[in-house]
């Protein structure tokens, strides 16, 4: 018996692959294996002999089975090791390509502005890009002879023969949306109106199309001091700074009275803008209290209601915030530019998650 044990344990240890091991298994514990033959001999034994030989044989069978299982596992491990050794790849090879899309800075910044003003209760209003001169000028207290009309570098639409209406214009500002909104909703009202506007001007700092966002808040008691606070809050949130200093400077716009240009305290270092510190003042927007004639043009009684309006360039604040040097490049669709200044699809600006990553 001991001989048998030594023989098979040895054979198991020496089996070089699964096939050899299987041969050993059959020879040892298979139906006709030597252990099985020994088992059969048990029947011929006396009860006393059997008492001793039976358990010993069973123990031998168990031992061989365990050794077989252990050897099988180690052979499998070795085979796997072998396979893995041959499965080496150069993982520094480039990955499969996955397209990286981008969101244009104009869209991104429009959403940032929207998120901030939404929190202050401003809805988003939109209007047509081709508009009548009535909405673009007259309702905004810019009559036909007003020098501001000539200064706006307006694009006019062609008028066909026999069409005697004054030519439509490409809106020179988003202000006509104010009027359309007031007509539609009446007072009180709070909206911002973002969108493309057009002026016939093209040089280093001007493009014939650019983007503005207009703000309008009309209520019983809104004052210019509320305007200043609103803009301060906006600038803080937009530029992600704790302190800002705005300077209101008297100016003139036909559609507001009083009117103010708003300057922002800032510093420039190496082309980087720092808001809220430094000795420079940068003009960022125009604003004022809505002119009584404009309220009236929008169907709102200026004796009962008053409010503020402001307008700023979306492209411009995008340039300031993100350090984009050239306005013209916004509309050139240069892939290098789009990839460099664009934003990831999931980078949606929110107040709770932050306006910029």
């Amino acid at each position, binding site marked *: 018996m001991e001989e048998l044990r030594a023989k098979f344990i040895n054979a198991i240890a020496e089996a070089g692959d699964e096939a050899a091991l299987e041969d050993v298994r059959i020879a040892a514990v298979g139906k006709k294996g030597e252990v099985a033959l020994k088992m059969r001999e048990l029947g011929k034994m006396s009860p006393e002999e059997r008492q001793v030989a039976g358990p010993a044989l069973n123990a031998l069978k168990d031992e061989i089975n365990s050794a077989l299982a252990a050897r099988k596992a180690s052979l499998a491990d070795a085979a796997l090791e072998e396979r893995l050794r041959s499965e080496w790849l150069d993982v520094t090879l*480039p990955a499969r390509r996955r397209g990286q899309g981008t969101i244009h800075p104009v869209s991104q910044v429009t959403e940032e502005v929207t998120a901030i003003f939404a929190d202050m209760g401003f809805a988003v209003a939109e209007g047509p890009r081709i508009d009548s001169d009535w909405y673009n000028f007259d309702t905004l207290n810019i009559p036909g002879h007003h020098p501001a009309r000539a200064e706006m570098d307006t694009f006019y639409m062609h008028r066909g023969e026999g069409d005697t209406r004054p030519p439509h214009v490409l809106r020179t500002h988003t202000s006509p949306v104010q009027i359309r909104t007031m007509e539609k909703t009446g007072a009180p009202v709070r909206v911002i109106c973002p969108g493309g506007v057009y002026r*016939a001007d093209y040089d280093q700092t001007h493009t014939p199309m650019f983007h503005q966002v207009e703000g309008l808040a009309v209520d019983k008691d809104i004052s210019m*001091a509320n305007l200043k606070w609103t803009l301060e809050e906006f600038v803080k949130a937009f530029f992600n700074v704790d302190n800002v200093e705005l300077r209101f400077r008297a100016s003139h716009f036909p559609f507001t009275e009083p009117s103010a240009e708003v300057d922002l305290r800032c510093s420039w270092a190496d082309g980087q803008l720092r808001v809220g510190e430094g000795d420079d003042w940068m003009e960022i927007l125009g604003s004022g209290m809505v002119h009584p004639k404009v309220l009236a043009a929008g169907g709102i009684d200026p004796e009962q209601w008053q409010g503020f309006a402001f307008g700023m360039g979306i492209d411009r604040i995008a340039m300031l915030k993100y350090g984009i040097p050239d306005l013209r490049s916004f509309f050139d669709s240069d892939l290098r530019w789009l990839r460099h200044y664009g934003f990831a699809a999931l980078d949606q600006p929110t107040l709770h998650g932050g306006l910029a990553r």
Partner: protein
Amino acid sequence: MKFTLSWLKEHLETDASVEDILYALTDLGLEVEEVSNPAERLRDFTIGKVTRAEKHPDADKLRVCQVETDEGSTQIICGAPNARAGITVVVAKPGTYVPGIDTTIGVGKIRGIESFGMMCSEREMELSDEHDGIIELPSGEVGERFTDWLAANDPAKVDTVIEIAITPNRPDALGVRGIARDLAARGIGVLKKEQIDPIQGNFPCPVNVSIDEDTRDQCSVFYGRVIKGVKNGPSPRWLQDRLKAIGLRPISALVDVTNFFTFDNNRPLHVFDADKVAGNALRVHRAAGGETFEALDDKTYTMSEGMTVISDANGVESLGGIMGGIHSGCTDETVNVFLEGAFFDPIRTAYTGRALKINSDARYRFERGIDPLWTPKGIDAATKMIMELCGGEPSEVFIAGEMPDHSRAYRLDTDRVQSLVGMVIDPDVQRKTLSDLGFSLDGDMAHVPSWRPDILGEADLVEEVARIASLSKLQGQPLRRSTAGVPKQILSPMQKREQIARRAIAALGYNECVTYSFIDHASASLFGGGQDVTKLENPISSEMSHMRPDLLAGLLQAAQRNQDRGFSDMALFEVGPAFHGGEPEEQHLQVAGLLIGRTGPKDVHGENRAVDVFDAKADVEAVLAALGTPAKTQVLREGASWWHPGRHGRICLGPKKMLAVFGELHPKILRDMDVKGPAVAFTIWPENIPMPRQTIATRPALHLNDLQAVERDFAFVVDQSVDALTLINAAAGADKDLIASVRLFDEFKGGSLGADKKSLAITVRLQPTQATLKEEDIKALSDKVIEKVTKATGGELRV
């Protein structure tokens, strides 16, 4: 509007620093655009005296000078012909920046001899074009600052020049006096009293003036007088300096006087040579149209009907309020001058100026509005100056028409400043502000001064008070929230949809572009546009002449530019308006994507390939799904002409409602737009996708089934023309309850099938809901699928 500090001080008594004045101007709404301060630029130059000058041993034209300066005697090599002992000169010592040659002086050796500075010419200090030699000063002490010497001896050279931007509402600030008035109201000094003595004429005015009855609203009043026996010629130095400082070219004394008052008091004047006024009579009238007129700018203009013109017996001599004529203009030979001061209507002047494209200082002022009441004073002040400069004898003043009455008053509500602006300003201060600005107060009523045509209501009074008090003092006050609690959603469903579309496409790997809304006529025409109604009347270039009918035109141009930059593969998209007409409402929202080239650059995995229709289809379907498009859409053909006729599909809800289109672009389009293909694209009309009917957030319940699903494959041979979708829909219709999905996995053409046949293979997935499917159930269903498909397609099961 440009002026100099010394000119300002003729009207304003002030000790304020330049900085304070500049700050106040900007803060008052007279935004300072540019300041030029020569004294600042030249502050390091000092006066020296040449004590010895000897020829340079190695250069004939150079002299070695010993110059006495504030730092003792120093050696300077100089090439100027007038460098000699005894002259008083201006010295730039080492370290001084010399603006005229844009150089900072250092110590140097010139032909072996050291030089410790430079003696300067006027041009080198940008004082004039004079460069014949170095400056020789008639006086001056060694070591004295040159700018101090200039201030004492030639102040115009160191006068600070200030340029401010004028908003259209402030014509009064187009005269130096108006600027001074604003500053005085702010507390920067005191406005000097105006001293204009009436000048009595010695004889009746020999030139008669009449204003036609129908022209009275275009020219309400005309003052004129002749000054006879003048001697014209260059104006004196002080006047020339003043005009030059603000960028005007001195012409002659008579003309310079009129320019002086244009800028001094916003009072444009005109001088005629009285001897050239044919018939000794001027008539102000509306042009009949067609008259021609040779103006002082040497150009000939043709009048349109209604323009305000001034004619003599020979015809039009002057364009009222805009420009005089060359024929009757003053020259050096003029001996009798007719001085004109009139009031021309702003609106008429603006229209005429715009129509004839004349930009003159007179037009600029008349169209914004001058002070009519100052007209007689302007005539007297100009007469006085002409007599001082040119001599002569004045006639009486001839007056045609009547002074317009612009008098009006508005109530000053001192509480209004607080309620509208949010500033607290003492009522007495408010009153004083207005009276400093020239308003006269009569109780609560503020009478508007004649030089402020912009003041047209109570709100204007508030603005004046706040402006002078300074809006910089305004403190922000929180804007009350419009609703209590958490703000509601503010984006409209369509605005939300636009954002989702944008981010969904970017997530698919596309780069967002924003292209111009206008494109060239040829490109617009290729995409169904280019009609006259979408044409711009005044485009800035022919590349931007028509409103875009479709976003793909702009994207293809963008792709073409990128191909020129060496990019061959790209995915571009845009979300924005397209224009199907020229009316405000003829604008619609489009979402467009464009794929060009291959799916990627050559790579180690060898998986890139040319983009094709099914890339565009995958992307358009993904975006449509993100926008909440209903599942049941049709794909129709017969799309617009810019698509490849056989390789595009319109995704529709019913035959009329097109949600999107995808496909390969027509090769002709690529050829015409110079784009290298392959190019596939899609366009989505988000406004056409129906909004979901229900607005509740709850989803329908999810029923999960534990019974085993079974899949069976079928292949059918059908005509080539049969749409796969027809086959899929037919199979799915075999049992709507049991069939969970039908997936097409193979299309095969050729081989033994014959030229006009193809094989389509599908996997049908059956999901039992009640009991596990038995073989005979599956058989029955399979038969039904086959029956439905063969009936719908005319094909047969492939065996």
